[in-house]
Structures are given as C-alpha cells and as structure tokens.
C-alpha cells in the first residue's frame, strides 16, 4: 500500500492510499474521491497530472492523451498509472473539480428525436424521478453523459447541449456514423418512450468561472453542444462577460441549431456569432473557412486576450491551440474537449 498525495491548482491536498495493482484513479475512487477523468482508458487526457516525486508504472495509453514530451516532463495519466512508491502529484485543476460522490446512474425516457441539418439528430431525454436524485437535471454546463442502449449492448458519451434545469430535460446533438452501434439504434430502432441508462454528469470541460476574460468558443460540428450549454447558462444567469462563438461545419446544409443560436442572442445581447462553412456549395454570406481560421482573424484585432473553449475533432483542437498560442493566449487559457466521433 502506497500513500498518494495530490496538490490541486488552488492549493488543497487530497490524500489516498493505493495498492500496486490499482490504477490511481481506482484507488482514489475507493476512497470516494472522484478525480477528473473521462475515457478511463488512456485516450482522452482528462486525468493527466504531473508527478513531483515517486514512481509509477504506466499501462498502455494513447499519445493524444499524453505526449512523449509530457511524459518525459513527469506527467502521468491517473487512469493508466499504478504506484510503485509513495507519490506526490500536482493537479492542473482546482479542488472544486474533484467529486466526493460517485457518478450518478439514472434512467431517462426518450421524448424526442428529429433530424437537424444533414447527418445530425437532436435527441431529447427526460430523467425519470428517482429517490436519490429527484427528477432534476443537475450538471455543470459543458459536461457530458454516457448513454447505454436499452438492451445494454453499447455505451456512448455525448455532451449536453442544454443548460441544467429542474424539469429533468437532457438535450443532445448526435452525428450519425455509418456503422456505429449507437447510430444504428438511433437510425433504425429508437422509439419515443424508450428507456436509456444515463451515467453522468461527467467531465471537466466547463467554464472557468473565476476568470474575468472574454469567452470565445470555437467548435466544429456537434462540438457545438457543450458550447451551447455554457452559453445558454450564461444567458440564463445574465452573465455580462463578453463572448463569441465560432461554429464551423463542412457544408452549408450541415449547419444546425440556428434557431437555438438566435434565441441565445436575445438572452446574451453581447454574443457575437460567426458561422463558418469550410466548403460552401451554394451561396454563403458568412465566413468561408474553418472556425479556427475565423478565430485567428478575430484574434488579430481582439482588444483583450480571451479564454478560448474549443470542442471538436483533435485536429481542430490542435489548430485552435496553435492559433491561440501565436496570438499570445497562454496555453492554460485554452480549454478543450476532444470529441471522438461516436
């Protein structure tokens, strides 16, 4: 048994014990400490922390989650690391990001399913009343949930697009994949009234509320969902911070949720929206190109360095990080959620 201590960004120390056969993430959970994580398989990087002292053995992981440079610098993935000595770790998140209760498992009913833009579906679920959680949909804007199909055969994670609410509504935008098990279900078998298992909320791609900087959202495709959630929440709270949304798709008919974006502008009068189409095949009046190109242009004339929230495929994130960096936005002011096609 080894002693692990983790220092959070805001100076709190979280301590737990770990067996050599545990991953650090599992060991923490046994102590009812729920550290930021998502894939739990070394794929997403959500659980990356840096090691001040001590040794670990790392199981297989993806270099997207932990690059060679990061590993050389001492970073580890909690979901892939087994302790080989006592450990002192330093986390890139605040204590508030740590949960001290397990991720809820709840049931929800499918109440709406409709196509929105080519290849994308809008799903609406309704939590069932529950003795432990009631019927409220409590989460932090930007978080995701993991859905299990009614027959238990497949699980997928999707970001929530709506704001937390008391009637238990969950709104999702899902891009259909040619051969995904979930996509097959949605395309062929999904019926209003189906019950799905929901594990969530999860994820740390949320607003840095303490930061006073303008908030810029750079999203591709259904990566719009978490940004929409955060912006809707800002609208509900009448948040006065300046904010921009760069929303990009490949073709004009892939655009979706434009009505939701319009209502956002009413709630958040300061919101500036740039719709970006990479290859417009018909007449297109707004930005032609990727949302990252639009971002790079806007950064040239930005009076203040914004916090940048990016959600979309890994290439979009890498490009946005690069654009931010070259405009002098510090690395730790760019927040991202990698979003792998489901």
């Amino acid at each position, binding site marked *: 048994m080894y002693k692990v201590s983790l220092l959070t960004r*805001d*100076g709190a120390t979280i301590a737990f014990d770990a067996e050599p056969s545990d991953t650090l993430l599992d060991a923490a959970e046994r102590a009812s400490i729920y550290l930021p994580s998502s894939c739990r398989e070394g794929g997403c990087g959500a659980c990356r922390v840096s090691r001040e002292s001590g040794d670990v053995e790392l199981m297989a992981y993806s270099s997207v989650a932990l690059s060679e440079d990061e590993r050389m610098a001492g970073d580890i993935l909690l979901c892939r690391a087994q302790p080989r000595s006592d450990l002192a770790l330093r986390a890139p998140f605040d204590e*508030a*990001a*740590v*949960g*001290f*209760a397990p991720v809820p498992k709840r049931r929800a009913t499918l109440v709406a399913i409709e196509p929105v833009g080519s290849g994308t579906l809008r799903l609406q679920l309704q939590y069932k009343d*529950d*003795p*432990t*959680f*009631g*019927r*409220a949909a*409590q*989460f*932090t804007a930007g978080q995701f949930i993991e859905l299990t199909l009614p027959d238990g055969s497949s699980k997928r994670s999707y970001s929530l697009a709506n704001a*937390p609410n*008391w*009637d*238990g509504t969950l709104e999702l935008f899902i891009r259909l994949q040619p051969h995904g098990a979930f996509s097959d279900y949605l395309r062929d078998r999904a019926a209003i009234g189906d019950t799905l298992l929901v594990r969530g909320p999860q994820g740390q791609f949320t*607003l840095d*509320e*303490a930061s*006073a*900087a303008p908030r810029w959202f750079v999203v591709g495709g259904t990566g719009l969902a978490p940004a929409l959630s955060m912006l809707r929440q800002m609208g*509900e*709270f009448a*948040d*006065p*911070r300046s904010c921009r949304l760069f929303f990009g798709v490949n073709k004009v008919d892939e655009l979706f949720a434009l009505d939701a974006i319009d209502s956002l502008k009413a709630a958040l009068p300061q919101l500036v929206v740039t719709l970006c189409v990479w290859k417009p095949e018909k007449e297109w009046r707004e930005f032609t190109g990727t949302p990252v190109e639009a971002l790079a242009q806007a950064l040239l004339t930005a*009076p*203040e360095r914004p916090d940048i929230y990016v959600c979309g495929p890994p290439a979009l994130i890498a490009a946005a990080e690069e654009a931010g960096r070259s405009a002098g936005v510090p690395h730790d002011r760019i927040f991202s959620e990698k979003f792998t096609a489901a």
Partner: protein
Amino acid sequence: MFCYQCEQTYRSDEGAGCAGAKGMCGKDATTADLQDILLYVCEGVGQYLHRARLLGATDIEADRFILFAFFTTLTNVNFNAAKFVEMIQQASQIRDRAKALYEDAARAAGKTPETLSGPAAFAPADTMAKLLAQASEAAVRKDAAILGEDAVGARALILYGLKGVCAYAHHARVLGEERDAIYATVEHALDMLAREERDVATLLDEALALGRANFLAMEALDAANTGAFGAPTPTSVRVTPIKGKAILVSGHDLKDLHAILEATKDKGINVYTHGEMLPAHSYPKLKAYPHLAGNYGGAWQDQQKEFAEFPGPIVMTSNCLIEPQPRYRGRIFTAGPVGWAGVRHIADENFAIVAQAAQALPGFTEDAPEHTITIGFGREAVLGVADKVIDAVKSGAIRHFFLVGGCDGAAPGRNYYTDFADEAPKDTLILTLGCGKYRFNKHDFGTIGGLPRLLDMGQCNDAYSALVVATKLAEAFGVGVNELPLSLIVSWFEQKAAAVLLTLLALGVRNVRIGPTLPAFLTPALVDVLVEKFGVQPVGDAKSDIAASLARAA
C-alpha cells in the same frame, strides 16, 4: 490584493493580511482588488454627497447604492468579479450625478463649487484588465508610509465599521426603514476617508460617530423586522428534518425568507432555516406559515458539508457564503448582495424557480427523531418578564448576566465560547445572539425560576435588542449599564461585528471582552487606546474570565 478585514485573515510572523492569489475566505485577488476600487469610487460619491448635503441637496438613490455596494464587500458575501466591474461602472455614473447635484447646489447658493481630487477625480477603466491595473490607487493600505500605521489602522476601523453600518442599514431599508442621519454619517465618513485624514484622534472620533450611526441602523432594522413580521416571541423550533421536499434558507434577510415562504405556499415544500436565519421562527408573521418547518445545521463554517447533504435547493440571502462545492453548486441560489460566479442569482425576489427546484429534488426521505430548541427572546419578550428578572436579581436567584454573542468561525480557539456558556454558574443567565450560539444552543442549560437560563435574542442583526434590554434593566435598577451585573463576551468574525463594537463603545459600554483574536488592523497603539478608554480586553480562558467577571461585579 491585500485584505485584513476579518478575523480569519492570514497571520504570520511578518504580520497579518490576505495577500496571495486568494484570501482565507476564498476571495480571489481579482475580486478583492475590484472591491477596493468599488469602495474607492464610492468614497468619491461620498465626497460630493457630503458637500451637497451641507447645501441642502440629497440623492437618496445614491445613498442606497452605497449601502448595497459596501454590503457586497463584507466577508463571505460576494465573490463574483464580473458583478464588481458592473457596479464600478454604476458607481462612476452615480458619482457624476452626485457631482452635478453638488455643483448645482453650490451655484444656487451663490458659491463656486470646489474642484475635488482623490476618489472624486479617479477615472475607473472600462475593462476588468485595465481596472486591475488601477487597483494600487484604491488599496486599503496605500500611502501607509505617509499616513503612518496608526492612522491606517484607524482608517481601516472606519472603513470596516462602515461596511457593518451599511449592511444593517441595507437590511432595514429593504423593509422600508431608512434614517437620513445614517446617510449623513456615511457620507461624512466617506469624505473623511477620501481626504486622507491622518490625525488618529479625529479618526477615532469618526469611528465613534459611526458607532452611533450604527445604533440608529440597528434600531431601524429592529423596527423594520418587527414592523413587518411582529415582535419575536419565545418559540420552540424543530432542529431535525421531517420527511418531504425541502428548501434551505440561510443568511439574515427576513424579507427574502418571507418571499420564499410565499412562493412555496401550499406546494408541499418544507422550508428550513440555516445559520442566522434561525430567529425567523420566532416572528409571528413568519411562523404563521406552517411550512416553515425547522432549522437545519449549524453556523456558516459548516455549510459545505451541510449543504452537500441537504436534499433540496439552498438560498443564500446575505452573508456568510463560502465556496459552493460541486455537489450542491447547481442547487444553490444567491439573492440580494450575495454572489458567486456561476451560481444563479435571484435579483428580483422572485423565488418561483427555487420552489421548482425543490419539487425536482428528492427532499428528505424520512423523519429524523424530533428535537427542539427554544428561541425568540427579543427585547419585547425579555422585557415582558422584566419584573420576574428584576425580582430574581434582587433575591439573588440570578447573580449575573453574560451576553455571549457574535459571530462564529472556524478558528479552533472558538471553543472558548462553548466552554464559557457551559461553565457559567447555574445562578447566571446567558443571553446570546449571532451565529456564535451554534456552539452551545443545543445544550441544556436548565431554568432559573421558570426562565430558561439560555435566552436566544436572535441574529447578530438583533444586537439592538440586547442593548435595549441592558438599558431598561439599568433604568429599573437606577444604575448605569456598566454597573449592571452584566458582562459582554463578544466573538467577532466580520465587519458587522466591528460596527457593533463601535456602537458599544460609543454608548459608553465598558469592559467588553472580544475574541478569539483582536482585529489585525488595530495597531498596538490603537489597542492601547481601546483598553484604556473603554476597558476592552481580549478573551482569555473561560474559567478565569468567568471568575473575573463575577469578581468585578461582586
């Protein structure tokens, strides 16, 4: 940032004050700096209002804004940086208005308006980043080298006392009670701070003037609360939950509580009080609501654990809020001066959404074993049995009164107050108010001649009641308050307590014991003045302090 306004301020060998990225309360450097700037601009408003008033012109909306702005900067009230940027812009517009008011009044009186400098001339930037660059101009300890430490300490006493006065006055004003004399004193104090007065004697006089204004503010608040909801009467309150949907209301604002009770009427939702909201159960018009079900939890410093476990929404109506934890961040609401970035704020007293949240959350799934405590000994209730009390004193059944009251806090030394109450001899009465009482209010103290030995007089906001009772008893016995068999053992945490202390001093109350530590902003020389002039003393150990109090009275 630099802040040393409250009892838990960071202390080290080098001195006291929160100066890092975050204060001990969780206030971050950005918010702290913006708060300083807001108050600095308010000083500028005060410079003009003070002069306008001398010429017979006033702007009550500006005065009201000052109360609110100051209230937001108390410890554990508002941590929302964006809100402060907004209020700074508002303050700046109000200052322009106050300037015009003053200049017009001066010209109307045939005088040439003065050109004011300092805060009156400070131009706040329009973005957060630029404002932060201006923070040093507004810092609490700026010019310490020129003014001297004692003057800086005395100015801090005024600034923090002023915060307390503003908080009380704001609470009173939302219920319709305002006193022009309070506004006049607030403006005067702001002007004094703005002109960098450095004579310590003058500053201490100003502090006492604030103490007197605070007495008025507390009187107004008492009139507001009793006027709106009736005079508190002794009431037994359940302190364990009952099965059903639930809302928790914390803070000090009875008006908000009333609005919540209205919003949840006949909806099958139980409303619980938390912390300083406990005394609400003793007001006739509030306790008439059958769904005001009980009190839950203890003092503010336990809220993170208690709120996490509470199965419904939580409303913070005033201080003392600490960082909402992820487990309840989505179901905590702020109202009035309170705020936290990313937490829903209810600005319009419409609590329908809270009722909706309560319906959507699980509530308590079973009844806990019943346990009750008795509260509601406001001035009317105590004076209603004054004859009994006076007889008991005369017959020797009551040997002494202890007022063990004030704020609670997390410092370990605060067990002193528990020990004090527990060890007070059986022939003494304990009066209490403020959330410090949570250290002992569930203990059994027994009775003297049918009177409970522990009399809970209410919130820290009800210090007025204690002063009225003391004054009336002194009248009845034909002595001064200082000759009564009464000792005050005051625990302080934040700036309302600073204001109450100034009131006690201004009214000539001597020998107050304060703790658990003395305010960090008071220099040794200032402490000496308080000790010499007013007999103020730091708390020691409970046994000896009790013995000393009884010996002095004997």
